[in-house]
């Protein structure tokens, strides 16, 4: 076995061990450095892995222990997982860099170390959710990411974050309860926990017509549970307060990565356990499709009504997640490819928007109401440019990443006439709605401030500059040279 195959395992363990070691460090600064190191190491390892298995288009499974598939744990890695893992580590690294100043301002000095433990464990959990080949391991890591995600919301320790954490926690617990009973039912009718064996048994069950009802219930419960945790439309109400009130790095990581982790798991379950044909047959995709469409509209409308810039961005996340669910709901390879691409696009854009928004508000005494931010872009040009690029990408202007994603969604619907006109109409409507809140926000940022409104100029922040430049580069990369990424995703989906 080539040594490179160990890298997924190394990246997960490096993150978990850095989390464990962190309490022994001297202070928050060192914990921050260790977290950066863990994310950087993860990035390097995933990058090398991607460089190796991407072009060769190979996939493998990695035994966690001395026992082969149905007995021991396994990781399974293919091009799709490698791409996603690389993106996750990159976004985590950049979110930490971009939000570093706010972390040290918002979190009490004696608790900063603990905050970085949560970040490390979230990264480990996300990587594990991306790589795992075992449904119960997936459940355990879902719980890890739930607890850690709630912890990074409440780390700011203000009244607002505590209330929104409680709401988030309750919804997450409902979600994990549903996922757990789904997994238990699935185990009862199949007797396996590893994806390949599960798939084999599920196909047998479908072929013989045995346990059809429990199987449908299982798929429904798992989709419902993961949907609640990733803010699918009717269950999205917890997201804006949680993402809007947390500290910058938390908002970036939560909306850029954590909600995506569950969606990635859902896609992998659809392919590796239930198979997409069975899912289509059970008509679950149609439900997801409708919820996705509704989410696109409801999220945008919520964002239009919002005057608080971070909550506006959070509502926009609901809308963008609606796109992802719509892509999954199409139930075709091209649809899911578009959904994966959208995951990458949103993971690169939203953290940048969050960190730029809070950098802009830093000069205005952290007042995040939009009216208080008029002209703020002149005080921090880089943040202004970053916000503008992110906003244009979210609206879907050509050359920006969001545009490519929308084109993929549009072209993915061509085969299904009924879904096609629904999708195209909603896409058009949602683009208009997106423009309705992003354009005024950008215009406000770049309009000349009135007398007495201008804030003080902020000292330069190299960490923030690095992260914003990297995110801008990523947005343009995904918007212009998307072909290699798309090829990787397509190959990865074919190999799942």
């Amino acid at each position, binding site marked *: *076995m080539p040594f490179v195959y*160990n890298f997924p*395992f190394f990246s997960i*363990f490096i993150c*978990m*061990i850095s*989390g*464990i070691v962190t*309490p022994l460090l001297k202070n928050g600064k060192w914990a921050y450095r260790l977290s950066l190191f863990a994310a950087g190491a993860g990035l390097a390892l995933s990058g090398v892995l991607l460089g190796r298995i991407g072009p060769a288009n190979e996939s493998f499974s990695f035994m*966690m*222990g*001395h*026992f082969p598939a149905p*007995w*021991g*744990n396994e990781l399974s890695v293919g091009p799709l997982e490698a791409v996603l893992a690389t993106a996750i580590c990159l976004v985590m690294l950049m979110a930490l860099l971009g939000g570093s100043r706010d972390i040290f301002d918002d979190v*009490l000095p*004696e*608790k900063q170390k*603990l905050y970085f*433990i*949560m970040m490390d*464990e979230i990264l*480990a959990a996300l990587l594990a959710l991306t790589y795992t080949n*075992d449904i*119960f*391991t997936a459940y*355990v*890591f879902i*719980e*890890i990411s739930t*607890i850690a995600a709630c912890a990074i919301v409440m780390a700011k*320790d203000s009244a607002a974050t505590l209330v929104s954490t409680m*709401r988030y926690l309750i919804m997450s617990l409902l979600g994990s309860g549903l996922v757990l009973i789904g997994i238990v039912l699935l*185990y*009862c*009718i*199949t*007797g*396996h926990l590893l994806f390949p064996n599960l798939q084999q*048994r599920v196909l047998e069950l479908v072929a013989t017509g045995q*346990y059809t*009802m*429990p199987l449908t*219930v299982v798929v*429904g419960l798992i989709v419902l549970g993961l949907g609640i945790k990733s803010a699918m439309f009717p269950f999205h*109400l917890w997201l*804006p307060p949680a993402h809007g009130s947390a500290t910058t790095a938390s908002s970036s990581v939560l909306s850029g990565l954590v909600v995506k982790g569950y969606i990635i798991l859902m896609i992998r379950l659809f392919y590796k356990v239930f198979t997409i044909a069975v899912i289509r047959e059970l008509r679950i995709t149609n439900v997801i499709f409708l919820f996705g469409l509704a989410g696109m509209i409801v999220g945008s409308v*919520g964002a*239009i*009504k*919002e*005057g*608080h810039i971070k909550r506006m961005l959070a509502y926009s996340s609901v809308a963008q997640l609606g796109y992802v669910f719509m892509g999954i709901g199409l139930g075709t390879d091209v649809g899911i490819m578009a959904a994966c691409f959208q995951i990458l696009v949103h993971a690169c854009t939203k953290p940048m928007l969050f960190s730029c928004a809070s950098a802009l508000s830093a000069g205005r005494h952290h007042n995040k109401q*939009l*009216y208080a931010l*008029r002209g703020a872009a002149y005080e921090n040009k880089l943040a202004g440019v970053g916000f503008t690029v992110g906003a244009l990408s979210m609206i879907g202007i050509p050359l920006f990443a969001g545009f490519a994603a929308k084109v993929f969604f549009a072209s993915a619907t061509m085969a299904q006439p009924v879904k096609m006109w629904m999708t195209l109409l909603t896409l058009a409507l949602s683009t208009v709605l997106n423009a309705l809140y992003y354009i*005024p926000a950008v215009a*406000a940022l770049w*309009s000349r401030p009135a007398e007495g409104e201008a804030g003080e100029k902020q000292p330069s922040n190299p960490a923030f500059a690095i992260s914003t430049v990297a995110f801008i580069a990523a947005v343009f990369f995904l918007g212009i040279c998307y072909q290699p990424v798309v090829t990787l995703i397509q190959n990865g989906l074919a190999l799942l």
Partner: protein
Amino acid sequence: MSKMARSKKEKQTSWQRFCTWVNGGTAEQPLLPAEPAKPKKAKAAKPKKQKAQPVRKEWMGLSRFEHIYRICAVLIGVVMVGVLMIAVLQLPLFGSPDNPSVNEVVERYVEKGLEETGAVNMVAGMILDYRAFDTFGESSVLFLAVTCVTMLLMRDRNNTNKEEDLLTAREHVIEGYEEDIILTKVARIVIPCALVYGVYVVLNGHLSPGGGFSGGTIMGSALILFAVSFGMIRMSQFFNYATFRKITSCALMVYAASKAYSFFTGANHLESHIPLGVPGAILSSGLILILDICVGIVVACTMYGFYALFTKGEL
């Protein structure tokens, strides 16, 4: 803003309002003129109430929404129970030996378990060797939980006030002088027994029911009993936050290192060189014993940590 200006503002044409909006709005007109400045509450989709209105009105608004919400929730719950019932109707029968979960996986766990893991207790062999990655995740969950509780309840300037400080100080003083004689006498007998029993359960995890988690909880409860009967001050003489951090982190490090070793050797098809020992002896079954001890230590510290943070807000 004066009353005149305000009334003038209200008379703006829609074009003017649009211009203000494009310019980023004002404090009175945040984004869309027609919309309220504050967001609608996420949970309650009720119309925004003015702050000046009495609380009573808010309650009524909430309860109306709550009414609909409750009916929906009950419906969802009942439907879900119904659907699950129907699923249960089709499930394999209780206690039957030929239900689908009894397959080659179970066969190997039972028949080869002793030979491959060295554990007489197959559950221990399964969770600490065959499927050890889950269990490592589980210990991390515990570690995360105690970290979160520390984050929330460890005393700092956000979660303390003078009143409570005084109360705590008084309790400390009382603790120092008054020892409940019945409690302390009983504790002197019970604590050693509980500790020994906890250690026994941990060390026999691979031979008999129990293991790191339950044994650790028993040891933790012995620690809690000590703190209850002799006071936190006596406890903190040998167990404070620094020791807590060091012990849990080191135990988890040992856990992670031994698991990493076994995963690495397993995946690369290397010999693991860990003797399994004689089945049934205490010193057997390779890494399982070490892992059990680590888990036991972590759990004991964690349980005591929960108690200390919940009562006093410090370790």
